[in-house]
């Protein structure tokens, strides 16, 4: 295993092999191994001055190295770019203390081919390095494509969710979004309030001035309600001229009275549409849920309807805050009206 013929066999089978003499000098390097030191010749240099042995830790001298025969070695090039290599060392049986070290880039194959400008011809025909590079590149391309698809789908999902939660005419939340908010608040421990609002005289606007005027009024109403509430409150349009406001974190009913009064006052300001003045008002039924109470959703909405009904019954353009005694009034009135009919 000393003649040039033997080396040429190994050059084909293991182009990244290195032959080391007993003194620890590199006496031969395969064609790809030679590229690792660039312009500086590898042959003639001391193996441990070119490569540092990181694992096993105990290898510090040539004597240690000789004893590591057959084990997997983790090497690192001492010169930049400090390429990490895997290696295995085999002492030659009758080679006067000579050893062969076969090198591989292992996991740093991508950096290796780039840093040393390697080509297909630098790897043995049986080496899986090229397939590995192919796979990395193909998988990366496929993954990039998948990521682009995911981003598009995510964008479409957000847009669809927004659309599903929004009333198209006014941009307010819709009933679906309202239910989401209420479900969260009902389950929580924070005081909150629900205002059920019916516009008064809106039908007259629609009937006399037309749907365009009606739409304009609804959009104005939406803007006013949004302005008279805080960002953390939810304003929803839940029917033609029916709105629900959920006020988060309400500490007292005096706040509710003020907010309700302001909304009614502003809605009563005439709304101008193409030279015509539209006049409406609003009736409000409000339920205040104090902290520690977790009402059932249907009871909550029913209480709000009872309070709203009381406002309508008392002459409209006002707010009623729910009280259980209102139930007696509602009972008497609904006995007179057609059963199940919503208060007009």
């Amino acid at each position: 295993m000393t003649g040039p013929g033997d080396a040429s066999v190994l050059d084909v089978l293991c182009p990244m092999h290195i032959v080391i003499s007993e003194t620890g000098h590199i006496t031969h390097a395969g064609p790809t191994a030679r590229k690792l030191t660039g312009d500086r010749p590898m042959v003639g240099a001391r193996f441990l001055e070119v490569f540092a042995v990181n694992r096993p830790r105990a290898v510090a001298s040539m004597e240690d190295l000789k004893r590591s025969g057959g084990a997997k070695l983790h090497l690192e090039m001492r010169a930049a770019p400090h390429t990490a290599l895997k290696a295995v060392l085999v002492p030659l049986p009758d080679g006067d203390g000579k050893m062969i070290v076969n090198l591989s880039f292992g996991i740093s194959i991508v950096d290796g081919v780039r840093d040393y400008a390697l080509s297909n011809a630098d790897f043995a025909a049986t080496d899986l390095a090229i397939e590995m590079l192919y796979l990395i590149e193909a998988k990366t391309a496929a993954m990039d494509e998948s990521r682009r698809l995911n981003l598009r789908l995510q964008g479409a999902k957000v847009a669809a969710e927004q659309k599903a939660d929004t009333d198209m005419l006014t941009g307010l939340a819709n009933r679906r979004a309202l239910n989401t908010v209420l479900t969260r608040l009902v389950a929580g421990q924070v005081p909150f309030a629900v205002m059920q609002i019916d516009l008064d005289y809106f039908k007259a606007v629609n009937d006399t001035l037309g749907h365009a005027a009606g739409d304009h009024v609804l959009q104005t109403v939406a803007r006013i309600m949004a302005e008279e509430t805080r960002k953390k409150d939810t304003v929803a349009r839940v029917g033609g001229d029916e709105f629900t406001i959920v006020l988060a974190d309400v500490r007292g009913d005096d706040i509710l009275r003020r907010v309700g009064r302001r909304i009614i006052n502003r809605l009563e300001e005439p709304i101008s549409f193409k030279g015509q003045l539209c006049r409406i008002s609003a009736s409000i039924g409000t339920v205040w849920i104090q902290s520690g109470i977790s009402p059932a959703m249907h009871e909550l909405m029913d209480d709000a309807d009872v309070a709203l009904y009381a406002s309508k019954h008392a002459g409209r353009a006002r707010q009623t805050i729910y009280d259980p005694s209102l139930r007696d009034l509602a009972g008497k009135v609904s006995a007179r009206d057609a059963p199940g009919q919503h208060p007009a």
Partner: protein
Amino acid sequence: MHGLINRSIQNYICASFGAHIWEDVVRHAGLAFNSFEAMLTYEDSLTHAVLDALADITRRSRGDLLEDFGTFIVADPKFEAVRRLLRFGGVSFEDFLHSLDDLPDRARLAVPDLHLPQIELRAVGDGRYSLICKSDVAGFAHLMMGVLRAMADDYGALALLEPTGAVQGVETLSISLIEPDYAEGRAFELGARAG
């Protein structure tokens, strides 16, 4: 058919004929959407409908268009990834030809649900080969002709390519390698990555 193939056809149509022709194809083929997603899978019938629509609208034969498409996916700079992945197949054009049998398996290695038609290279003499293509897509041999022509250019080889027959889903392409090192090929650096 995999979205990668459908999307590539769409890109080819947009790049070669313009977005307005793609819109015509969408209408003509009766697609329920206006763009293929590369990472989804579609009914084979949609691919056929798109190819038929393109042939009708451009008044060109399907074989002619598929050959053009084959060249496009290799040679167009936007498809650099395809060229690079094909170049991994061999160090020379001849070496590459011998890797064609593995092409469907290689594709599946990257994208498990990407099924390419089976192709088989048969040596018939000195530098002469037959490529046997088994595919439901009529004109697939023409597509391979476009791919191989562009790859021969890429390697700098001179090869004569000619479809020599189509019988019941099996199409044959004859390949004559005239000059392996006819011209300087395009560089292929292992360490470079398609952007």
